[in-house]
């Protein structure tokens, strides 16, 4: 019996175990990797894409997809840059840029729920239009941010947590509580599992779906802002391609594109941090840069393979036992 519990524990936590193993392997190959500072860097570099991936998880849970997050990041970043250049103080600028994220999400939601256009197309449209509008504002010229913004990345909350990690943590905790412990959170899973049945069970699916895109847009803008505090500059390509990174992180964390399956923690968080960690590990171990993506993709492949084997095994273990246990 004890054996079985161990087995179950290992199966339930394979991704996490793999994570720790990878950490140790990189650590053996490059001892400096095992430092606390490195962990902090990995987390800090995970935070912006992690925040976006959390928003993406909400959308994926309902069976949707949000391709527009990269453009949302760009549009909201460009706006805040323009406002700062026009002399606005920081706080209202941030507020406006977050509002733009919310607005983009709301537009997505309107197109999807009112016009009944499939999420892929709807967000493809807002992705192109959003980028175009951003370019319209900047004429493709990069936007630089003053030190008052970039210095935020060095702020330590409570004296030791870097601001971006703090915000990331906050986002994760809020999202987790929402998904696990609130009515809307649980209903989100229901909608993703079977939208028709959800409708029949009397769930108000439309506001729920709307909220996921709004959340995703909001987190995209927030993630974009975090990124700006770190890199200080927004050029025309800012955020493009990030939608794929965010989706990849969520899916690596176990979310399904078909909806109904996925979690923010450990799921998406682990997915994001894992990718960042591998990336860092490759730099630490000085692997030929031509081989970086090759090694990275092999590790991810292995992680996903392990996950699917594990799911199969767990299913088997949880199969009901019918026979009486004699003896």
């Amino acid at each position, binding site marked *: 019996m004890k054996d079985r519990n161990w087995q179950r524990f290992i199966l339930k936590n394979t991704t996490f175990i793999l994570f720790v193993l990878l950490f140790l392997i990189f650590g053996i190959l490059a001892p400096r990797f095992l430092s606390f500072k490195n962990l902090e860097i990995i987390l800090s570099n995970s935070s912006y894409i992690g925040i976006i991936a959390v928003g993406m998880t909400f959308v994926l849970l309902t069976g949707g997809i949000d391709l527009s997050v990269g453009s949302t990041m760009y549009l909201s970043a460009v706006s805040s840059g323009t406002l700062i250049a026009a002399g606005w103080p920081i706080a209202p600028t941030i507020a406006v840029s977050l509002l733009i994220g919310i607005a983009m999400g709301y537009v997505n939601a309107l197109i999807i729920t009112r016009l009944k256009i499939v999420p892929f197309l709807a967000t493809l449209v807002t992705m192109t239009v959003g980028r175009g509008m951003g370019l319209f504002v900047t004429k493709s010229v990069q936007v630089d941010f003053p030190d008052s913004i970039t210095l935020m990345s060095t702020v330590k909350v409570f004296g030791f947590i870097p601001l971006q990690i703090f915000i990331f943590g906050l986002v994760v905790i809020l999202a987790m*509580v929402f998904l696990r*412990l*609130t*009515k809307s959170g*649980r*209903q989100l*899973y*229901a909608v*993703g*599992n*079977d939208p028709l*049945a*959800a*409708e*029949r*069970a*009397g*769930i*108000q699916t439309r506001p729920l779906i709307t909220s996921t895109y709004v959340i995703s847009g909001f987190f995209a803008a927030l993630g974009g802002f975090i990124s700006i505090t770190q890199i200080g500059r927004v050029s025309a390509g800012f955020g493009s391609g990030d939608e794929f990174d965010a989706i990849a992180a969520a899916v690596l964390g176990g979310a399904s594109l078909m909806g*109904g*399956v996925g979690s923010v923690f450990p799921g998406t968080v682990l997915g994001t941090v894992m990718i960042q960690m591998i990336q860092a590990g490759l730099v630490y171990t000085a692997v030929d840069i031509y081989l970086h993506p090759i090694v990275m993709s092999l590790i991810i492949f292995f992680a996903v393979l392990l996950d699917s084997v594990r799911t199969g095994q767990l299913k088997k273990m*949880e*199969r*009901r*036992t*019918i*026979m*009486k246990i004699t003896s």
Partner: protein
Amino acid sequence: MGIKLKFNNIQKHFFGVTALDGVSFEIEEKHTVGLIGENGAGKSTLMNILGGVLLPDGGNMSLDGDAYLPSNPRDAAQRGVAFIHQELNLFTNLSIAENIYINSFPSLKKTPLIDKKKMNDSLKSLLKSLDLNYSPSTTVENLAPGERQLVEIAKALHSDAFLIIFDEPTTSLTARETEKLFTILDQLRSEGRTIIYISHILGEVKRITDDVIVLRDGKVTGNSETGLIEIPEMINQMVGRESDNLFPERSAKPKDSPILEVKSLSQPGIVGNVDFSVHEGEVLGVFGLMGSGRTEMARMLFGVDTYRSGSISIDGTPLPRNSPQSSIERGMAFVTENRREEGLLMNVAITENIGLVSLPDYCRNLVKWVDAKRMNEEAGIIGDSLKLKASDIRRQPAMSLSGGNQQKVVIGKWLMTKPRLLIMDEPTRGIDVGAKYEVYSIMDRLAADNSGILFISSEVEELIGIADRIVVMSQGEVVKVFEKKDFDVTALMAAAFREAVA
């Protein structure tokens, strides 16, 4: 007593099919009303209108004397109407408790958070009363179909609705669970609730209802107090003709030569040492309580699930493991108990569904060109022989059929392969008396053509009525094999409970 609910001239059409054609009747408060009718008569459609899932094309309703026209299920729930659907309506990724509370989660001290403890605690006794021995936090995915149906029932019981609709609640339940449900219905009635009860098992209707409403082709053809109407008359009103035989005469006797031989089949924790055989021309019944492992055994036989040891052979040659495809090539067929998830391609035309298994037989030359014309014709013939009720079987998707007719499509697709051994897992679940008779006749015809049939059922009567021998399973093991001469309801039940078997 007052009138709880009144239907007045309700109309509903789908794509040219008239599902309801001026239905009017009244339901008295605190009564339990049986609603019966053939497959496709319009029962579920009427209830869907009542439950706010569908809008009527014409007519009106009143509830408690006020006009009533729910535009969605939430409206209906607010007016105190609860609905247990014919097709399970559960979220498999959520827990039992969450499914039950999906729209009314208790909150934790004025926070927006869910009070999980309260939720789970409040359900323990309810689940126990239904004999559902799981913690309320169990994920529904892990439950068997019958257990899921109990969750649906728990859901309705838990609501404080004063009008509760049960659309064929017992289809996945065995006798014992059904008894349990009836006790609960009694209790509900004593609490003063009004119940609409839809079933194809007329004995049940006779036993527990106060009034019976009969629908045929979308019209009310009967409306009387249950006490004043006998089952043959109910059937008469349902189908428009007299019918006294529930089971066809068996036209031939089983042969000695075995088709299927199962030797010490086992899979740890699930089935153990299963031995039996099915002979040419034989209908072998399999009886057991819910969760006795019949379905799992059938799935192993057909190659859907794996097993650890033992052997399965067809006509003396062992069957390769875990390959439904080769099982089919060897002449096996398998009507699963779960038609929605494993039986049908819901939004595909009926003929395509019927033709799916036999596709290779309608292929020509190297590139496997499908002779669609011939296939559709044959599928049409099968559909006719099953008296499938559909408007255009080449275009109409399976989804739009009534529950019972969907079941006929599943049976039809296997009949088209002219199977040597047909495994049927609860094939008569949810189909009307007429259709049941047809299914039995099909079994008889196949048997007379020297095929073998493995017939899993939870209804003792039908097993006794049609089987040549009955295998009783309990907790994954074959407890006893009954010869025809020993058939007896109490003995069979006793064996299923493992009483006095030793």
